């Protein structure tokens, strides 16, 4: 047994988190910043954070993830990190020539209270920010919220520093992307394109974290939302935020700053969330949903109907981030599956409220968010009564092996499989991918474990 010390006996934990279903803010800010074209993320703290965040993102994407750090020493931790950041800004613009430096903070610089506004303006006064280049920043204290909060803070900073309203409104819909894979963003953009909707997606990691290998390394790949696009978001006629936790703050700030009205919908994972996203886009872009998309929907329905008996009543345990867990859980319910255990380390009421609503007909379902809503607890629940399927990040493989339970990798980080940055889980196509993965997991497990006389040629 890998997790041999996990037993079904729960104690009332008040302080110890074991096997977290979350990580800390700055990695979210770093990830979001990579969705700006020509951007170099910068971690204002000691350098360990930056290395850990780069490594974690790299393990997940199998792609270059470059970011710089202020490399605090003990001296700067006591007397402030202003000199470090000013020096870093000079070095980055001289050596690495980014269009934008996106600074985020860590628990170190937040605890000592470094004032980023003042430091960046000093760098500007010293002439260290070249003409036409930008230094943006957000505060991402690791002891508040989670990586999702950090992502949200970075996206909000994009609005704060760039979105500009001119008198000329354009017939464009902003799509604020919550934390998802580049493949998911690509799929959402494809759907918008098929609808012939004019959109600006931000942040946009397509073409950044799924780049080709051709012998040339571009530190700033072709992808990412450009500065002119980010500015233009202030002139769009509407904003759709995808995922409340990651994007609502940016949507509100954009409305306050540029009077662009908004709606927050779920990340389009599964049938109903995709339906809602498309109807929202259709309404606000004032365009019909074309038949080719309706056909994709029908193919998904076809697949589910053909295989419904394999899905019915299956108990599922899930863990991860609220914006993906909400539509994913809803989708599983629409497949007649039973998402019985769900944990998200990210705190917040919307998760609890939505889960209560989605799970109202599954009385045995347990869910939890925030502190100590961790994978140790999830495993304890599984020990109390088992499940048929696990859906979550790579850390679930230890539970999957111990409990011999089929397992699908979903969310962040996935460190032990490749290709998730190429194949979407969003839209009807993504939902189809997901159903196929679920069916494969069940069928592989059955083929491996059933008695020999029960092995089926056709399933």
């Amino acid at each position, binding site marked *: 047994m890998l997790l041999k010390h996990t037993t079904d006996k729960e104690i009332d934990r008040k*302080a110890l988190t074991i096997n977290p279903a979350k990580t800390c803010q700055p990695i979210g800010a770093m990830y979001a910043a990579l969705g700006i074209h020509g951007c170099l993320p910068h971690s204002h703290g000691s350098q360990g954070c930056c290395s*850990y965040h780069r490594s974690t993102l*790299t393990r997940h994407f199998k792609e270059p993830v470059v970011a710089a750090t202020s*490399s605090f020493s003990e001296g700067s931790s006591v007397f402030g990190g202003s000199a470090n950041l000013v020096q870093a800004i000079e070095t980055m613009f001289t050596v690495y020539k980014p269009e934008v430096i996106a600074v985020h903070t860590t628990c170190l610089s937040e605890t000592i209270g470094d004032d980023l506004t003042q430091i960046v303006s000093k760098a500007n006064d010293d002439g260290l920010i070249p003409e036409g280049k930008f230094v943006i920043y957000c505060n991402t*204290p690791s*002891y508040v919220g989670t990586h999702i909060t950090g992502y949200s803070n970075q996206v909000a900073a994009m609005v704060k520093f760039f979105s500009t309203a001119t008198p000329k409104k354009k017939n464009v819909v902003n799509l604020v992307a919550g934390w998802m894979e580049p493949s998911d963003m690509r799929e959402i953009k494809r759907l918008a394109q098929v609808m012939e909707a004019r959109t600006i997606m931000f942040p946009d990691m397509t073409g950044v974290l799924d780049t080709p290998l051709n*012998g040339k390394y571009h530190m700033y790949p072709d992808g990412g939302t450009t500065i002119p696009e980010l500015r233009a978001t202030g002139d769009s006629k509407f904003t759709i935020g995808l995922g409340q936790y990651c994007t609502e703050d940016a949507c509100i700030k954009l409305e306050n700053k540029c009077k662009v009205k908004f709606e927050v919908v779920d990340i389009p994972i599964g049938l109903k969330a995709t339906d809602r996203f498309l109807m929202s886009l259709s309404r606000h872009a004032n365009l019909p949903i074309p038949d080719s998309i309706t056909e994709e929907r029908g193919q998904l329905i076809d697949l589910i109907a053909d295989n419904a008996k394999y899905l019915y009543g299956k108990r599922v345990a899930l863990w991860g981030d609220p914006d993906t867990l909400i539509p994913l859980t809803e989708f599983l319910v629409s497949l007649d599956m039973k998402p019985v255990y769900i944990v998200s380390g990210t705190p917040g009421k919307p998760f609890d409220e939505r889960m209560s609503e989605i799970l109202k007909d599954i009385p045995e379902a347990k869910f939890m968010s925030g502190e100590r809503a961790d994978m*140790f607890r999830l495993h304890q629940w599984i020990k109390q009564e088992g499940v048929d399927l696990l859906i979550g990040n790579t850390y679930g493989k230890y539970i999957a092996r111990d409990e011999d339970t089929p397992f699908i990798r979903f969310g962040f980080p996935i460190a032990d499989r490749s290709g998730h940055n190429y194949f979407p889980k969003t839209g009807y196509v993504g939902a189809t991918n997901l159903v196929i993965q679920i069916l494969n997991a069940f069928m592989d497990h059955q083929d491996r474990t059933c008695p020999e006389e029960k092995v089926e040629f056709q399933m």
Partner: protein
Amino acid sequence: MTKDTEKDINLAEFKEEVLAAYPKKVAKKRGKAIVYNDPDEIPQIQANVRTIPGIITQRGCTYAGCKGVVLGPTRDIVNITHGPIGCGFYSWLTRRNQTRPDEQAPENFIPYAFSTDMQDSNIVFGGEEKLKQAIREAYELFHPKAIAIFSTCPVGLIGDDVHRVARHMTEELEGKVNIFGFSCEGYRGVSQSAGHHIANNGLYKNLIGNDDSVDGKYKFRINVLGEYNIGGDAFAIETLMDKCGIELVATMSGNSTKKQFETAHTADLSLVMCHRSINYVAEMLETSFGIPWMKANFIGAEATAKTLRKVGKYFGDQELIDRIEKVIAEEMIPVKEAQEKALEKTKGKLAMLFVGGSRAHHYQELFNELGMTTISAGYEFGHRDDYEGRSVIPSIQIDADSRNIEQITVKEDATRFKPRKTEEELKALEKEGLEFNGYEGMMAEMKKGTLVIDDLSHYEMGKLIEMYHPDIFCAGIKEKFCVQKMGIPLKQLHNYDYGGPYAAFEGAINFYKDIEQIACCSIWKEMKAPWEKEDIVEAEYVY
């Protein structure tokens, strides 16, 4: 350097070109960290100084060096990270410290991450009470033999005292569990290195010497220090020692248990693999208990044989010496076979190595065995002694950034100090070629004119590849995909690209095979689509 590669390489251009891209002050500092090697007259290199902000370093922090590297691999201690969730999360299963629980120590906490998950209220009002409660809960749930606490950045700033909490909780739990803390806040020192030092001090103060029991089946008793069982390296060494009839008392800290730390002082010799991370413990074991240490290397078949022979010579027992020779002879048969097969593909190729604090040196042995030349190498966080050899230690100035790292004074143990060899015996062994308390460093073994670079930056890495097109670049996960986009295969020498073991004879065979695979990998020839122009495209570094 082999003749056919020599003509293509003029490493002298590198420094000039790189430094020209930096702001003046940065260029001045980096200039001292980039040197041309001359093994006969080893030049001084700047190392173990603060990282230049914004330069894009490979380095990590003190917490990583302490919790992640030294204490992480021990399976029966509950390691609690006192801090916000990130540090504990990122060091959760991300280093490949394999372990194999046994009947004596069936516990295995390595697949778990324990954290106090500090919130803003803990920053404002202090986190000591939460830490105490976390320890109570860890004890109630797991009943471990020991609990270690690791401080992260904010802990030092808000004044939480993890040592006081450890003492308090030891009392509260009536000494049923050994609880100790580490002040390994990420901002201490300039790299992981400070964390090694802090971890070494903690091992000495809290574990080493706690258990005088002497068990095991062989009379020749050694420690292997600074070996973390990445990809099963320590397993390979354990198997080899068993074949030779040598008792491995403690491995620090691959596949280790609390008891191994506690009984390490009962060994008669320490072998130091990773000099950087564990030389402090090696010194303390000698001062306190009289156990001499020698630098060893189990990376490379020749190096492994050499190390075994050193052990044989040290104990001076003919039966042991004969047994070692027999094992070497047996093991070398499949090694030679694998080596010859790989050599056809690898001979004459060029390698560059930029890894941590020891492997950039050790792995050059393996590349030599593959007929490959290392034209450039460096450490993330080595000190001058790792580059230039321990003889320079007296001349190393500890600068302001590292001055506050705890130095502990160790004295002879009043009852248990026992010199394993007399002065005369040691002198005689030295005459026979053994070196005690010595390490010559990486530069002595690198060719003249090779390029040694400390704390390599992202920019320098790109320039190295653009200018010299090595056949293989060795570094870590952060560098891997950048380098591969340039069309150059990168071999990860931290996590072995999920392969290994690479240590001992068994490991050498694995390494030959893996490098042969990389040298033969067909896909690199397909980077250009057939409809694109046919010229061979050189790697290009574009900002």
